[in-house]
C-alpha cells in the first residue's frame, strides 16, 4: 500500500519488504524458492550418500540387461526371458494398454446401457439397476478384481474338465479357449473393401446432407450406411473365395492346443474394471441426459421433428457436452486402476518394471522413475486431448 508517507518510512527497508503488497509477494516467492531448493539439495545429497552406502550407482544401464523372467501373457510382441528389461517393460505396457482399451469399450457399452435403464419408466428395472450401481460403486475396485478372479479360480474346472460350449469355446481356470481366425491369401481384398465401404458411407452422408439442404428430402442415412458397411465386405469375402479359416481349440493331454487362449487374469481384470467404471459412467450419462431441460424436447417436437430425430439432433448433442468431460476422467481412472493388475498376477507395466525387474536388479530409484514417467506421459497426453476436445465442443455463446 503505497501512501504518500511511504517516503518517510524509507529507513525501515526491511519492514517495507513485508508491508508493501508487491514487495511482499516477491519476498514470499524468494523465500519459497530458497526453501524448495534447500530441501531438494538435501534430498539429492541424501540420495547420493544412501546410494553410496548401499553400494549402488544411479544409472539406467540395467534396462539393456537380459530380464531373465517369463511373461505368460504377450499377445502383441514376442518376448523370451533372454530379452532385455526394456522389452519386458514394453510387453507390460502393451498389456496395460490392452486392458485399458478393451475396458474402456466394455465400460462405455455397459455404462450407457445402465444409465439409460436408470431413466426408464419401468419401476422394477430402474430399481434393480439402482441397487446394483450403489452396491458396486461403494465397494473397492480391488475387491471386485479379487472377487471376479476368485470366481474364475475356484469355480471353473481344470482344463481337462473344461466347460464345453458346443465344442467351440472352452472355459477352464487356466483360461478361456476360443476359435482363432487364420487369415489366408486374398484377405487383403476384404480389408480393402471395408475401407472402400467406409469411404462410400462418408461421401453418401455428405451427399444426403446436401440433398436435404437443397430439397428437404431426408434419406434413411443410418440404415443405408449400415447396409453398405455390412454387405460390401461380405460380398467381397465370398467373391474372393472365403479366405478365412478357423482354428479350433482341442484338448491334447493336459492343456488345449490351437485356437486362442485368453488368460483368466486378463478377463477378470478387464471385466471387473469395466463394470466398476460402468457404474460411474451410468450416473454421468443419467445426469447428462437429465440436464437437458424438457423445453428442448418440446421445442423440437413443436418444430415437427419426430422423436428419434429429436433425440439425434437436439438431446444427444447437448447431453454429450455435459457427459464428455467427466466421461474422459473416468476413462483415465480406468487406465490408472489397471495398475491393480499386480494383485492377481497379470503382467502389466507395474508388475514387470515395478515388480520383477525391481526385485531382480534392486534399482528402486530408476525403475520407479521409469514407471512414474510412463504413467505421467499417458495421463498428460490424454488430458491434453481432453482439453482440446472440450474447447471444440464448448458452447459458443454470443
Amino acid at each position, binding site marked *: 500500500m503505497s501512501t504518500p508517507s511511504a517516503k518517510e518510512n524509507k529507513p525501515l527497508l526491511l519492514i517495507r519488504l513485508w508491508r508493501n503488497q508487491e514487495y511482499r*509477494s516477491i519476498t*514470499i*516467492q524468494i523465500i*519459497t*524458492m530458497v526453501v*524448495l531448493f534447500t530441501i531438494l539439495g*538435501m*534430498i539429492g545429497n*541424501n*540420495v547420493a*550418500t*544412501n*546410494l553410496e*552406502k548401499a553400494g549402488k550407482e544411479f544409472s539406467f544401464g540395467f534396462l539393456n540387461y537380459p530380464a531373465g523372467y517369463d511373461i505368460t501373457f504377450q499377445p502383441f510382441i514376442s518376448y523370451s526371458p533372454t530379452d532385455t528389461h526394456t522389452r519386458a517393460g514394453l510387453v507390460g505396457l502393451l498389456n496395460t494398454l490392452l486392458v485399458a482399451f478393451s475396458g474402456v469399450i466394455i465400460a462405455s457399452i455397459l455404462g450407457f446401457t445402465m444409465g439409460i435403464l436408470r431413466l*426408464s*419408466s*419401468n*419401476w*422394477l*428395472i430402474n430399481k*434393480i439397476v439402482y441397487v446394483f450401481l*450403489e*452396491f458396486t*460403486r*461403494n*465397494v*473397492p*475396485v*480391488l*475387491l471386485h478384481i*479379487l*472377487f471376479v478372479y*476368485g*470366481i474364475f479360480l*475356484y469355480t471353473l474346472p481344470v482344463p481337462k474338465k473344461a466347460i464345453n460350449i458346443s465344442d467351440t469355446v472352452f472355459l477352464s481356470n487356466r483360461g478361456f479357449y476360443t476359435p482363432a481366425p487364420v487369415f489366408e491369401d486374398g484377405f487383403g481384398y476384404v480389408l480393402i473393401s471395408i475401407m472402400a465401404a467406409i469411404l462410400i458411407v462418408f461421401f453418401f452422408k455428405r451427399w444426403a446432407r446436401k440433398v436435404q439442404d437443397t430439397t428437404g428430402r431426408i434419406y434413411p442415412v443410418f440404415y443405408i450406411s449400415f447396409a453398405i458397411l455390412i454387405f460390401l465386405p461380405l460380398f467381397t469375402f465370398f467373391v474372393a473365395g472365403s479366405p478365412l479359416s478357423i482354428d479350433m481349440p482341442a484338448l491334447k493331454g493336459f492343456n488345449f492346443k490351437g485356437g486362442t487362449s485368453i488368460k483368466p487374469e486378463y478377463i477378470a481384470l478387464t471385466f471387473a474394471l469395466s463394470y466398476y467404471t460402468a457404474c460411474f459412467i451410468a450416473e454421468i450419462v443419467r445426469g447428462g441426459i437429465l440436464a437437458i431441460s424438457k423445453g428442448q424436447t418440446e421445442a423440437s417436437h413443436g418444430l415437427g421433428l419426430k422423436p428419434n430425430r429429436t433425440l439425434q439432433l437436439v438431446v444427444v448433442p447437448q447431453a454429450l457436452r455435459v457427459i464428455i468431460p467427466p466421461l474422459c476422467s473416468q476413462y483415465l481412472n480406468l487406465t*490408472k*486402476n489397471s*495398475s*491393480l493388475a*499386480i*494383485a492377481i498376477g497379470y503382467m502389466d507395466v*507395474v508388475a514387470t518394471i*515395478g515388480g520383477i525387474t*525391481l526385485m531382480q536388479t534392486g534399482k*528402486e*530409484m530408476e525403475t*520407479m522413475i521409469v*514407471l*512414474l514417467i510412463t*504413467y*505421467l506421459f499417458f*495421463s*498428460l497426453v490424454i*488430458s491434453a486431448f481432453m482439453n482440446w476436445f472440450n474447447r471444440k465442443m464448448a458452447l459458443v455463446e454470443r
Partner: protein
Amino acid sequence: MNSSLEKGYVPGKHPNLPPPVKTTGIMAWAKQNLFSSPMNIVLTLLSVWFLWTIIPPFFEWAAFNSIWTAGNRQECWDQMSSPGAGACWAFIENRLSLFTYGFYPTHLQWRVNLSFIMFVLALIPVLYEKMPYRKYGLIYSSIFPFIAGWLLVGGFGLEKVDTDQFGGIMLTLILGVTGISFSLPIGIILALGRQSKMPVLRILCVLFIEFIRGVPLITLLFVASTMLNYFLPPGTVFDLLLRVLIMVTLFASAYIAEVIRGGLQAIKKGQHEAGDSLGLTYWQAHRLIILPQALKISIPGIVNTFIGLYKDTTLVLIIGMLDMLGIGDASLADAQWAGLANEIYIFVALFFFISCFGMSRYSIYLEKKLHTGY
C-alpha cells in the same frame, strides 16, 4: 340440449359416462410403472425372472443353509447337505478378532477398543451440528488423531507396539481417517496456491497436483515402500505405515485441491471485491467470505473424493500391509479354510458398502441442509 344448458344441471338428466380410469391404488400404479407398453411388459417379466433366479438361491445359501459355528472347513461342510450348499460364516466368526485388530498384541487390545470409542465420540461433533458445546467437541475432534496415534503406537508411558502388527479394520480406519482429516486442509492450501497471483507458488502447486493426479496410487505406494528411504538422511528409520500415510494423504489432497478449485472458480469476482472494500486481508476475506461459499459448493465432490480415498486404502495390501481386505485375502491361504472366498469377499464388501454408503447419504443430507436456495 340448448334449454338444459341454460337451466344448468337437471337432476337425473346427466349422460351415462363410463367411470374414469383409476389413477390410484396398486393396480393403477402397476399399470403405469410396470406395464405401460409392450416393451415395458417384456422388461418387467424379464426382471422378475432375473430376481427369481438370483434372490431365493442367494438367501438359501447365505441364510437358511448357512453354518455359524465350526472349527474348520470340513466341520462346516459336514453340517450341510452337500459341501458349499450354504455359507460358512463360522470362518468369519473364527477370524473376527483378526479382522478387527490385525496382529495387535492381545493384552493391549483395550487400547484399540478405547480408540474406537474415542473415534465415535470424535465423529459426533463433526457430523451433528446441534450438539451442545459443539465448539469444545470440535477441539477434541481435531486433536483426536494425535491421541489415537499415541494410544495405538505407544511410547510416553505406554508399551510400544510395532506398526507391523497393525491390521484389519483398525488399519483401514487409521488410513482412512488420517487421509481424510489431513487431506482437506492441505487440499485447500493447494487450491488457493493454484489460484494465487504469485507465479512461483502457482507453478509449484500446479506441478504437484498434476504429477499426483497423473500417476496411479499404487505406484506412489511403491515409491513409499521402496524409494522414499533414499530421500532421508542416512540411518533414519522411517516407519512404513507413516510413509504410506503421507503418500495417501498427499494423493487425496491433490484431488481435493482440484474439487475445491472448481468451487473457488464458481465464486463471483464481486465477492472478492466486496471483501477488499471492507478492508479485509487476503486470509480474512478467504476465511469469512470466499471459502465458506466455495466449500459449500464443493461438498459433493469432496465427499466423493473421501469415499474414493477410503476405498483406495485397500491398495496397501499390494505392498504387504494387511488391512481389512488384506486379512481376508491372507485368510484364504489357510489350508483349514481354503476355498471359502465368497464368504470373505461378501463380508469385506459389506463392511465397505456400509461405510461408503453412509458417507454418501450424509453428504446428500448436508447438501440439502446447506442449500439456502435463491
